């Protein structure tokens, strides 16, 4: 059986490693054959996806999140490509492989792309990479260790935080000034203050202590 594989990564050396993994699989099992295409940027990725959607489709995509944006500015990261894939190739299985391990980004990606496989590059070694491909081909999802841990940590509070709460915590954590927040988050200053207050109640920290809030949110895996 021949699988159409698309590898999206701006580092040729990584793309090469993924390729090696697929070759390794087919060397183990003669029945598995992979038709591998490699692209290094968003533009190429979108072209390939569009082409494939009109022809014979793609079975597995290895998707890197931080790749150079498209020239028309519509595609900013691998995340957007993932959304595009889900739109054009609903049957395609996506394995996100990223160096990000900050919880917020991971959650956003999980929410928007909902990939069958989620690899944090640093967790991954040869065996795991191979296993992840196998698992995904077997129709069971595969998540890296860090992602699983995140799921566990969040279980308690998760349902109460919406996207804006998370974004607010995230912005606070990267040191964004309060004054600039209304430009980033679609809320007024008072709205932001209100949310912040609610978050403080939720995380059980002092009213004045923004720093503790950020630390607690981090500990709980929201950032």
């Amino acid at each position: 059986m021949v699988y159409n594989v698309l590898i999206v990564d701006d580092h040729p050396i990584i793309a090469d490693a993924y390729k090696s993994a697929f070759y390794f699989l087919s060397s183990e099992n003669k029945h598995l054959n992979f038709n591998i295409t490699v692209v290094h940027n968003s533009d190429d990725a979108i072209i390939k996806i569009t082409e494939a959607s009109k022809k014979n489709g793609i079975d597995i995509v290895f998707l890197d999140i931080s790749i150079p944006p498209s020239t028309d500015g519509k595609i900013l990261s691998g995340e957007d490509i993932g959304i595009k894939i889900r739109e054009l190739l609903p049957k395609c299985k996506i394995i996100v492989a990223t160096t990000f391990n900050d919880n917020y980004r991971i959650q956003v990606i999980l929410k928007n792309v909902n990939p069958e496989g989620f690899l944090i590059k640093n967790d991954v070694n040869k065996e795991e990479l191979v296993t992840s491909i196998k698992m995904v081909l077997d129709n069971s999802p595969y998540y890296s260790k860090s992602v699983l841990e995140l799921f566990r940590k969040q279980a308690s509070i998760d349902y109460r935080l919406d996207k804006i709460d998370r974004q607010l915590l995230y912005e606070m954590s990267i040191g964004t000034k309060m004054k600039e927040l209304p430009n980033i988050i679609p809320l007024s200053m008072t709205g932001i203050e209100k949310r912040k207050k609610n978050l403080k109640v939720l995380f059980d920290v002092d009213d004045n202590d923004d720093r503790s809030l950020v630390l607690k949110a981090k500990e709980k895996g929201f950032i």
Partner: protein
Amino acid sequence: MLTVVFCTKKPIVKDGFQVNEIDSITRWIQQSQNRKLDLSDRKGALQKAYDYTNALSIDSIKSNYYSKISFEADNLNSEVLFRDVSSKALSLATTLRDTFKIGDAHWNYASFYSKKEAVDSAYYHYHEAYKIFKLLKNEYFTAKMLYNMGFIQGRLKDYTGSEVLMFEALTIYKKLNKNINIYQCYNYLGLIYMELEEFEKAIYYHNKALEYLKKVDDKGTYIEWSLNNLGLVYQKMHKYEEAIEIFEKALNNSNLKKRDLNFYATFIDNIAYTKFLDGDTLNVAEEFNKSLKIRDSTKYISGLTIVKRHLSEFYAAKFDTFKAVQFANEALSLANQVENNRDKLESLLLLSKVDIKNASTYLANYVHLNDSLQIEERKIRNKFTRIRFETDEYIDKTEELSQQKILISIGAIIILLLLSFAYFIKVQRSKNKELIFEREQQKSNEEIFSLMLKQQSKLEEGRLNERHRIAEDLHDGVLGKIFGTRLGLGFLKINGDESTIEKHQFYIDELQNIEKEIRTISHELKSEVLSSKIDFFKIIENLIAQKSNLGGFEYKMIADEEIHWDKIADEIKINLYRIIQEALQNIIKYAKATKVDLKFELEYNILILVIKDNGIGFNTIEKRKGIGIKNIQSRTNKLNGIFKVSSEINVGTTIFVSCSIQNKSNEYGV
């Protein structure tokens, strides 16, 4: 005939000094005033008072006593002492520029010369005193001087001149309600008009005098004197009966015999003489003799001369030429004895009438004496005129000068007012300017600070951006490449023995560890949540780092974690910055320190700054405050804070600044 006049004497002024020497001087003066003592004893006492006074050291007190002693010496007719004291009194008063005392000394002189019949000298001194009292606006004394001057002029037969002065004095006395003085003026005016033979007027003034006398408490023998003078006027008018009536009225109304024997004799003489003039010779001789006897016993020579002339006239009328000539001659010799020119003249005139044989000689003598006296009087009168003229000129000049003075003073005051007003405005303006300047300075200070902050935050931003870039590069670039390399290595089929394969796997794992490390580093580079101590603390750190390079000292800087610099007002931060700058400047300039500790502490909203060095120190008590210390003080004052500096030679200096940070800004930029 006798006319009676009074020369005004001045009152004795007493001061109350309680010093020993002064006490004894006062005692000696009091003793000299004691009428129960002998004249020589009294003079001795006054001499002692004078000697003590000479020993005094304070000129003003000395001057007071000279004045008193001079007055008393005049009273006691002690000529030598008087001249001595008065000259000293005058010169001392002149050196002290005590104008009143100068006038007083002149008065004493005048009274002294008046007694000595040296009328021109007396007049001169009265005039000097008059000028001074008039300048001093002492009206009472001015009037007294006028009276005395008029008195002297009257005696020299300058009746019109005398009259003018009397009226001047009278005007002042009336204003001041000095009844006794008014009485004296009227009395004298009565005498003047009698001399001028304007008898009606004389009677009018004498009656006026008596009228005013009713208002006087201590009348003495004034009533009798006035009645005597009035009687004499009637006598001159040949109204003998009225005259006798008045004389007798005076005699009957009082026990004059006891009070003033001489005066009593005068009345007897006058009554007898009037009777004689009236042609009534009954008992006249006895009465003349009675008067003669009394006057002989009291040695009242002037009175004696008069009664003897009366007797001579009486005997001439009785054609007893011998006795007439004898009495007339006795009168003349008595007049010669006391040098009384008036009596001399009268006696000579009488002799020329009674002594028929020598009539021409006496007449010639009379004419000669009269002429010479008149010439003398005229001379003196001219002198008076000159003195008065000079005085008038002097007064005019003084008035002019005083007017000028007033004008100058007014001008000066106006100019002064204008100047002070201008000065006030100028001060106000410069104050305003200063305020505006201060405000501007404050503003620019704040601007500088905010610029500094902005620059700092730009710097910080740049630094942050750079960190982000590095982090991203590490994360996306390096990390990805290592990851790729690691996986690539993992898929490589390594041929070799087991240990080589093991090593291969180890290096791959090691690469994974390196990745982890890089990730951590990248993360930390990005994460700014822990470094909230930026801005002000950074600014101060930059400052001290820069200064430590300049001053060659090491530094340590600590800030309390509790301090939220963002919440502290810019004004406080600006001033703290300047204080630290100033303190560090001082350390570089003077302290020669090798170590500087800077500490910020927070205690219940009080921010405490401590800057400690290990330099040479200084003596905080001896050393004058330098501009640096003063600046720190004034900046601390602006913060309503407390500033302390303690220093020990060769140990170092510590500066404490504390101030309250009451600020409720909730803004927190992480």
